[in-house]
């Protein structure tokens, strides 16, 4: 049936191509429009919204969710998903936190303390790497469906974190740990700089390397990728390892900002939020832009902070934030439907 195309379909596909191109840039345009509208809205409705103080505070908060969303996005791009991003992030923070609180000798030379902190961060990254290897081997080599594999590792990693900490939040880090999470460079919060750096890195990896190219092709059609001599298993392993490392970076930001590490940090919402951001950014297997993830993260933060400030003192204001996120998602779907709705039915 697919071969048999009447002139109608041919004609339509011309339109499709046009809209598709419009859409890809259109998604970025749409998100930018939403971002500006919301910023303007809160600027005029909330007195203190558009002030250096509140902007700085947002720039401190959003990188955690941002980098975690990148970790989610790349797995969706290759046709999978990673439900264990937040569990990986927590495990990395917990292991690094335990290293800092238990492994540093009491009579340590203060000059060496910085090296211990750096060592802890490297350990966190290593944990993220290993978590990624476990996911990647299960998905790429054993062939477990990504949603099941990462649901299993989500529980597994959370279990390890809980066991290691006995459910207690790890605190008492050296002061220098907080530098990343609390200092600014030229007025820009360090977490935000790190977010921008990792966004750029992800962009380069996805768009400028054969690995990123293959990731998108596998997401589009894994069988054809295999028949094109792509080593699917290696690429998938790479994707989940990268996802694990990005998750661990988030863990470092969280422990640095809160000066603590907990098995349960963000468990209830973070994973769903990263999926929500990916959906908002229009990421589907084979297609998706890093810049859209970046803007989608900004939008969510503006909504969150804006409503928080708008409704200060109102009971149930935090529920209203979730409500607003939901509404936003629905609006984006509807707009997308009208922009490209018909073309998807082809």
């Amino acid at each position: 049936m697919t071969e048999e195309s009447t002139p109608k379909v041919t004609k339509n596909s011309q339109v499709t191509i046009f809209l598709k191109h419009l859409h890809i840039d259109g998604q970025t345009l749409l998100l930018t429009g939403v971002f500006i509208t919301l910023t303007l809205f809160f600027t005029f409705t909330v007195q203190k919204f558009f002030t250096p103080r509140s902007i700085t505070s947002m720039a401190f908060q959003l990188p955690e969710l941002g980098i975690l969303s990148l970790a989610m996005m790349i797995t969706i791009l290759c046709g999978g998903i990673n439900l264990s991003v937040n569990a990986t992030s927590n495990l990395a923070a917990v292991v690094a936190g335990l290293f800092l609180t238990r492994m540093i000798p009491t009579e340590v030379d203060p000059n060496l303390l910085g090296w211990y902190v750096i060592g802890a961060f490297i350990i966190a990254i290593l944990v993220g790497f290993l978590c990624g290897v476990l996911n990647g081997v299960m998905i790429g080599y054993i062939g477990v469906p990504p949603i099941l594999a990462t649901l299993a590792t989500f529980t597994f990693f959370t279990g390890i974190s809980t066991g290691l900490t006995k459910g207690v939040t790890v605190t008492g880090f050296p002061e220098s740990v907080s530098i990343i999470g609390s200092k600014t460079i030229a007025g820009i919060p360090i977490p935000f700089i790190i977010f921008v750096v990792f966004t750029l890195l992800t962009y380069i990896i996805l768009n400028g390397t054969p690995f990123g190219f293959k990731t998108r092709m596998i997401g589009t059609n894994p069988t054809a990728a295999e028949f094109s001599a792509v080593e699917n298993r290696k690429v998938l392993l790479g994707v989940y390892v990268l996802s694990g490392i990005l998750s661990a970076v988030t863990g470092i930001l969280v422990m640095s900002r809160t000066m603590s590490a907990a098995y349960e940090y963000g468990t209830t919402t973070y994973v769903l939020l990263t999926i929500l951001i990916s959906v908002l950014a229009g990421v589907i297997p084979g297609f998706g832009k890093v810049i859209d993830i970046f803007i989608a993260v900004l939008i969510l933060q503006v909504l969150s902070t804006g409503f928080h400030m708008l409704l200060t003192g109102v009971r149930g204001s935090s529920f209203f934030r979730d409500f607003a996120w939901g509404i936003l998602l629905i609006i984006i779907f509807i707009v997308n439907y009208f922009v490209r709705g018909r073309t998807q039915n082809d």
Partner: protein
Amino acid sequence: MSEPIIRVENISKRFGGVIALNEVSLSIFPGEICCLVGENGSGKSTLIKIISGVYAPDEGDIYLNNKLYKKLTPIDSIREGIQVIYQDFSLFPNLTVAENIAINHQLAHRKNLVNWQEVEKIAREGLQRINIELPLDELVENLSTADRQLIAIAKAILADARLIIMDEPTTALTQKEVIALFKVIIDLKERGISTLFVSHKLNEVREIAERTVIIRNGKKVLDQDARGIDIATMEYHMTGRRLDSSNIAFSPPGDMHTPLLKVENLSLRHGFVDVSFALRKNEVLGITGLLGSGRTELALALFGELPADSGRIFVQGKEVHINSIQQAVKNQIGYVPDDRIQQGLFLDQSINDNIIISVIDRLVTRIGLIKSKTKNEVSNQWIQRMAIKTPSGKLPVKTLSGGNQQRVVLAKWLATMPKILILNGPTVGVDVGSKAEIHELIRQLANEGIGIILISDDIPELFQTCHRILLMRTGRIVEEYQRNDIDEQYLYQRLIFSENQAKAVSED
């Protein structure tokens, strides 16, 4: 002559600015076997959909059993005895044969409870009417394509069909199943039931048609008694140009002493046994055989997807071990799969990306970044060389026609500079015009020094392209022919013979 079952007059149909059908008239009489022929996109599907009431024509009249329908609905069409069997047969794979055949009857009589005896009775009656026996309790998903088709036909007959429209019915059938289907069609004819057989397989059309109707670009260009129309005439009317197949320049193949590829005693469990052959430089080697003869497995073994269990493979005299696709590619072997959509293409991705995926690792700078300029140059160069018709390489590959899509798959492998190219059914689902062009391309590639293994059961295709032809039967290479020693008719018989013999052997 009796009244026609269907008579359409001066039907036109536009989609946006495109004219799909332009003043087409067609009548079909009781008991007639009429073939509707046209290239992809010629408008034949639109015509079927108008006859079955799916589309309304912009202009023109439809008479069913001499009754004018101003606004024909699918229900009207079915009530007048017109049944369409689409390529997917519209069956329920999770229900049994009996349930599938009887379901329309049960629905029509608004039965809320199932009477199993009645279901079985109806199903048996339906199968009897086409002289077919099938296990009534078998689930449809366990049946072959051919059997599913027979069920769809039985269903149509039970609905008191007077005209059965079959849309590309032989696409997934083996030669023998095609013959069985033709028998059913002739049976139907004897009962006064007409068939509109829609196809672009011209040898089949020639065999079954009483009347041949050809449409091209939405216009009827031929409508006459099928006797005396040969394939060349049909091709001419389908494409609007003469396809010259008689004077093909074959390049002489290289010498036999240093073959490009030599295979010795290659075996794969459940695939093929003890296969040995050699492929020379500049040679196109045909491998033919019916579905299940092991021809695809052999291709997949040489390409590393299904590595062989035993035997030896030599590339240019050097023994190689091909256990993965990567190793095959390293040994400069390329493979164009038979399932283009699933295995060959990334439909939603751009033409450029579809081409360069095979060489992306070679297009990087020292620090591992893709050279985007070189990348575009490479893909553009192949789009030009393969004459892929598209306004831009950035468009998704799904916007291309079947023939152009196949060129993209070919370009993907040619970009790797292969020495050996394995083509599995390279023109399946490709229209006649592109088919001839792809055949020309294959000869040209051989001329440039590539050794080509062409796997196909399209006999004219083998004669168009191959120097030598190997015949496979139940996993073995049983015969080898030089192209010039045999003719198409002979090879066709050997192919069918092999199936009958294989069956006889298995029944022993």
